[in-house]
């Protein structure tokens, strides 16, 4: 029986169901990344302001989001918010909210880092050439921060994909849950199904993340 476990994948629509399960988390990652990008850029710029109040607020937000395990944040959104405000957030809405909040914090920090990495004399020489602040930002600052940011942003996407795997723990039906259903349904015919199903899920995640990581690495090397 040991070598037949792999056949469970080709039974009915099992493999397709796994892919659909993966699609659930990938969709959440994609939405969260797309929302995090503009919000994170705003947050990053907000953090470079010299105002002590804005600094304190963004700092607390950033520190709290980054020090808490994402799963804790997910629990707070899914269980806590429902109770506190009486909103009944579905698991996928909670997930999008939490991962957007998290992604915004991470992105904001990346943007801030890229902005403050531009040396003082770049601003000085732009000013010496008679450029206005806006012109300096558009023609000097943005192009330089972009090169630094794009690889890091792509990396954030893979981190997002990996992190969204957590949604199974707030009861969402995604790839791990689908896998478990398949394993349970075939418990007697295919006792080794768990090995193959979880192995395949492992591989699927790798195939989803690895090309993106490679792209980030490549861009980082080229633009350094």
């Amino acid at each position: 029986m040991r070598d037949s476990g792999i056949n469970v994948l080709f039974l009915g629509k099992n493999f397709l169901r796994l892919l659909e399960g993966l699609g659930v988390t990938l969709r959440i990652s994609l939405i969260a990344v797309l929302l995090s990008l503009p919000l994170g850029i705003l947050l990053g710029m907000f953090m470079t302001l010299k105002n002590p109040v804005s600094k304190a607020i963004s700092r607390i937000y950033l520190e709290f989001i980054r020090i808490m395990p994402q799963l804790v944040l997910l629990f707070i959104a899914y269980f806590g918010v429902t109770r506190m405000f009486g909103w009944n957030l579905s698991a996928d809405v909670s997930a999008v909210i939490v991962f957007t909040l998290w992604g915004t914090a991470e992105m904001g920090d990346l943007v801030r880092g890229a902005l403050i990495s531009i040396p003082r004399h770049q601003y000085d020489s732009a000013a010496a050439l008679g450029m206005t602040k806006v012109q300096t930002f558009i023609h000097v600052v943005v192009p330089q921060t972009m090169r630094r940011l794009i690889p890091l942003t792509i990396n954030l996407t893979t981190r997002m994909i990996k992190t969204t795997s957590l949604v199974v723990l707030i009861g969402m039906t995604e790839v791990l849950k689908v896998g478990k259903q398949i394993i349970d349904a075939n418990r007697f015919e295919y006792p080794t199904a768990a090995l193959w199903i979880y192995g395949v899920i492992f591989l699927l995640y790798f195939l989803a993340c690895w090309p993106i990581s490679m792209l980030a690495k490549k861009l980082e090397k080229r633009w350094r």
Partner: protein
Amino acid sequence: MGLNFDFIVKYLPWYVDAAILTVRVAFLGILFSLVVGIICSAVQYYHIPVIRTIVSVYIEISRNTPLLVQLFFLYFGLPKIGILLSAETCAVVGLTFLGGSYMSESIRSGLESVEKSQIESAASLGMGKVLTMKEVIFPQALAVSVPGICANVIFLIKETSVVSGIALADLMYVANDLIGLYYETDETLIMLVLFYLIILLPISAFASFIERRLRYAGFGN
């Protein structure tokens, strides 16, 4: 909101036990991650053939898969081929599998930051490979690696939260249990956040202290 303090007092011991488990798993995982990281970075730094390729494959796999999926494979998958590990062993193995690659990358970037001329000047003083590593490369690399290693430590402690997925009674597991049993959600979640803060804040503060010291006491040639 009025908090139910009786509830908090009653279930405090659950949290304490869970926190101990979280810390134990994290500590062992981080320790082994460092060992794996040191070995892997050394293999890459010294360009040891064949093993080096294996190490790069490991690093790519480890960095591009979620810990939760790694754990499911270890805990539910491996027993099917006769490898039976306890949930806690799985958690430590999984954390090491994940953390080893992160540690390796941090250590390697430190090793590679030591300039070649430093190594040559040690060689010109008749120092052998081992002595050069111990006296010249390692201390300088450490200064560069430590911030990254600290970040990894915090990251790995946070990652332990997913071990509840394989039914290990950590903080998340206890919180999930209590919410399911009693619906005292506010208290449960506040305790959860507090316990993670108690574990993570001192480490995070220590990490930024170290980082600041390293930055200002930078050697600079």
